[in-house]
């Protein structure tokens, strides 16, 4: 589609661009400075409206650089919801200084734009640009606490790991271009079907996976995660743990299913020739979840613990790539939604604790159950969901992912590894619960009530409540995901 006629399909992104500019402009006008957050929320509201109106549209726009389809649409919803909720709690976070608000908001929105592009790119160059558009503002956000050494370290680590990973990925992309002579992933698939060989495909796949694996913090490319998560301001950590990860999965699914399968679409049934990437993913899934879980066991810092737990959840989600088919993707997307709710609610509560008590160690949470029973109860729900126990949606998510293996009757060893891991994870999630609820007789803790900002409180409650809601009745969510599982060309 030509550039001009594409614009009609590009309205959400355009709204976002205008929003970013207007936030910056508003900050220059002294009398309007207090309106930054309201404007951002109004803009995100308009964005959501535009997204809602473009429901079900399928088109390839800007000369096939990006596409609009239900699949990218699904992820855009996650991104918008994540950004909006994080901005809401950031406004009340002590870690984001008042004077940095404009940079904070605009960088966050720029990442959002990058995430939108990541979910919808179908061109290698566009993929690369989108990933960089997400990464570069992320580096800055990680270092937002200028005078904090941990934050500086987080930023620097993120830059170094990020550049290395994108360098390797770019190399892999250039191999694909070299084989096929095109940067469009559909053309590449067609070219690979006619010429190309297994070795070349393996090599390029491996190097691309470095880039994507780094974004979703898949082992062995996860080393940046704990330090970056710990050093960044907590709201930024919360955003990193869901936004870029979901986008990484979006792009991984699109590239894998378009380039590296026999059919080049979601109807695929087997890998391209005999490139056995399902086995690779099975091994990586097992390693990722095991590393994440075992390293989480000894963490005393809640943010680090949640960082490792997010790694283990990624390992769990990678199970979906061991089987090719839409049932596997349904399970993955379902888990992503659940993961979104449970992780964000846990992080929002962590932000609240950080605001109030200026601590992020597990011991610092001691006696929270007495000081704020409501928030503690909802933290328990989130943690139980993260551990994957009924009656929470975390269990349903795990159930779906395990069912993927059983339906395809493959990789049973991975199912065993996965369930053993879920026992390990229980132990460290319950360390937090233990700290909140269980006290020894001789321990003295303050029982002074902790007041919560109502916005923070209700966001946390709403998100935790989702994990209960989707447990008791998840049919609508599954139907929505099934409708969303459709590329523009299928």
């Amino acid at each position, binding site marked *: 589609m030509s550039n001009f006629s594409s614009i009609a399909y590009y309205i959400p992104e355009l709204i976002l661009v205008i929003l970013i500019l207007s936030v910056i402009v508003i900050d220059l006008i002294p009398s309007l400075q207090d309106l930054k957050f309201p404007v951002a929320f109004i803009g995100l509201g308009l964005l959501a409206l535009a997204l809602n109106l473009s429901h079900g549209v399928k088109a390839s726009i800007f000369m096939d650089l990006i596409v609009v389809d239900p699949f990218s649409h699904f992820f855009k919803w996650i991104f918008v919801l994540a950004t909006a909720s994080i901005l809401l709690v950031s406004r009340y976070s002590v870690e984001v200084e008042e004077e940095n608000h404009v940079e904070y908001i605009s960088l966050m929105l720029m990442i959002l734009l990058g995430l939108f592009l990541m979910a919808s790119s179908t061109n290698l160059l566009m993929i690369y640009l989108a990933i960089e558009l997400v990464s570069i503002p992320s580096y800055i956000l990680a270092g937002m606490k200028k005078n904090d050494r941990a934050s500086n370290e987080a930023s620097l680590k993120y830059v170094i790991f990020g550049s290395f990973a994108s360098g390797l990925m770019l190399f892999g992309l250039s191999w694909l271009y070299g084989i096929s002579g095109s940067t469009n992933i559909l053309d590449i698939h067609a070219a690979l079907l006619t010429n190309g060989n297994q070795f070349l495909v393996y090599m390029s796949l491996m190097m691309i996976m470095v880039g994507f694996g780094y974004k979703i913090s898949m082992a062995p490319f996860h080393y940046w995660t704990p330090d970056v998560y710990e050093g960044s301001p907590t709201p930024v950590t919360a955003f990193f743990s869901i936004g870029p990860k979901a986008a990484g999965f979006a792009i991984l699914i699109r590239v894998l299913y378009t380039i590296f399968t026999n059919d080049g679409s979601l109807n695929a049934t087997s890998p391209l020739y005999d490139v056995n990437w399902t086995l690779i993913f099975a091994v990586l899934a097992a390693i990722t979840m095991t590393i994440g879980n075992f390293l989480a066991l000894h963490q005393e810092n809640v943010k680090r613990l949640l960082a490792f737990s997010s790694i283990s959840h990624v390992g769990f989600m990678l199970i979906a790539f061991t089987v090719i088919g839409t049932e596997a993707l349904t399970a993955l997307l379902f888990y992503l939604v659940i993961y979104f709710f449970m992780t964000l609610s846990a992080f929002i509560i962590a932000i609240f604790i950080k605001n109030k008590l200026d601590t992020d160690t597990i011991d610092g949470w001691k006696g929270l159950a007495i000081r704020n029973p409501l928030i503690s109860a909802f933290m328990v729900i989130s943690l139980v969901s993260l551990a994957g126990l009924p009656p929470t949606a975390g269990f349903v998510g795990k159930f779906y992912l*395990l069912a993927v293996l059983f339906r395809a009757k493959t990789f049973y060893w991975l199912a065993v590894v996965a369930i053993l891991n879920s026992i390990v994870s229980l132990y460290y999630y319950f360390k937090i619960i233990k700290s909140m609820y269980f006290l020894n007789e001789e321990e003295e803790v303050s029982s002074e009530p902790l007041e919560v900002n109502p916005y923070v409180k209700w966001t946390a409650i709403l998100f935790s409540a989702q994990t209960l809601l989707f447990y008791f009745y998840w049919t609508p969510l599954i139907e929505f995901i099934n409708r969303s599982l459709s590329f523009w060309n299928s």
Partner: protein
Amino acid sequence: MDSMILTLLIFLPVFGAVAMLPAAKIVGKDNPNIFKWIALVITGLQLLLAVVLYMGFDSTLSVSTSPYTVQLDWIKHFNIQYFVGVDGLSMPMVLLTALLSFLSIGISWNITKQPLGYFALFLLLDAGMMGVFLSLDFFLFYVFWEVMLLPMYFLIGMWGGPQRHYAAIKFFLFTLFGSVLMLLGMLALYFYSDPHTFNLITLIQTASSIDATLWGMDMRYLIWFALFIGFAIKVPVFPFHTWLPLAHVEAPTAISVILAGVLLKMGTYGLLRISYPLLPGEVINFAYILAFLGVINILWGAVNAIAQIDMKKMIAYSSVSHMGYVLLGMAAVVSTNDGGAQAGLNGAVMQMFNHGTITAMLFMLVGVIYEKAHHRYIFYPDDYKDPALAGKPGFGGIGAQMPVFTAFVAFAFFAGLGLPALSGFISEALCFIGGFSVFRTLTIIGTLGILLNAVYFLRAYQHVFLGPLNEKYKDYTDMSTMDLAIVVPLAVIVLFLGVYPAPLVDMIAPSLDALIQIIQSAF
């Protein structure tokens, strides 16, 4: 009304737990007693419903023809149903759960630490237990099975004894290990059966035709194994029993009653409800090992109980021993002798019920003395914090001081060691009769357990209640009316079923005959 009763049984406690929140807002601040009253009323209603259910219960009807059965779609995408029903196997368990829950509220009457949390969690636990016994859809069963873990974790960890934190997480990790294996078994059953279903009644027909191998092993064998571990941890069967003494001892009295009285039965109930009818061929292959493990349980539990100086721990180990009888009786289902299978299986289910009532009595009575003395030592340990007391008898001569209490303890101890005319005798005897018809040597070794049971019960009785009165306890008063109100109904049931077990047998026998039919036809 008939179709509502099971749903009410399960969800009434949930309603009660939720109702406590507004109650806490309105009157809770000035009147913390409101929570135990809510819990009492709710469990009382539940007991009433269970009795109503029992009145209208016809043991000859199968679940598919029973008027109480409810079958509704829950999640179509996975063919998961809200499918609850009651038959001869679940009926005694439902009665036991309702009765013990009600009495446990009475036992918890003096809880003052955060009553809202305690009673709300207790009711959720109650709902989970009821759900497990009434579910006929494997997914639903699993959900209720897991739902119990969380309240139990908090109840042990917040209201328990000195080592409660460790006991709570150990309990949780052990049972979770079992249940995740069960989850794998459940998924395998679903995807290998045709049509895919979690319906436990349909699976009886389809599961036995599963024909696949994995890692060189038969798929049905693997499923049996996964389910068995899951259930065995709950029972608990010998190498998996280590969570039990700790959890039982650290838990508050009412929770020990629930743990020993109801939760342990879930393991054997799960085997009888799921593993037995679905995988009869594997039951036959595995029966000898099951009987072997049962005998180990009987002896190991009893020997350990003898070594205990803490009365509660002794009773906890006696539970391990008594659950061994159940396993032995269950294994006897493969008996080809006339009536052997019937005796074994009936004995096992009766023992499940009887052990529930007897052990509840034992824990409750130990709780009474603990309330007064704040310790439960038959002998103080050698490294006791007060060196003057180390190694000395903990009590002595209580019998003269508290005659009524002593009488009930004697009654409960004798019921525990299987004295004729008390209910434990009949079920234990039936388990041995069943076991003897197939596993002759094993059963003979197992009967040693009866002797060992007598050793620890009588030894405890002698050192605590007989002999000269320990001066420390001379101003102790006897049981309160509240304590009597709790223990008398249990004692009446134990005595009644010991003299006249027919109501219990009539309730369970037809369902168990059907089960025996399924297993025997798999030979």
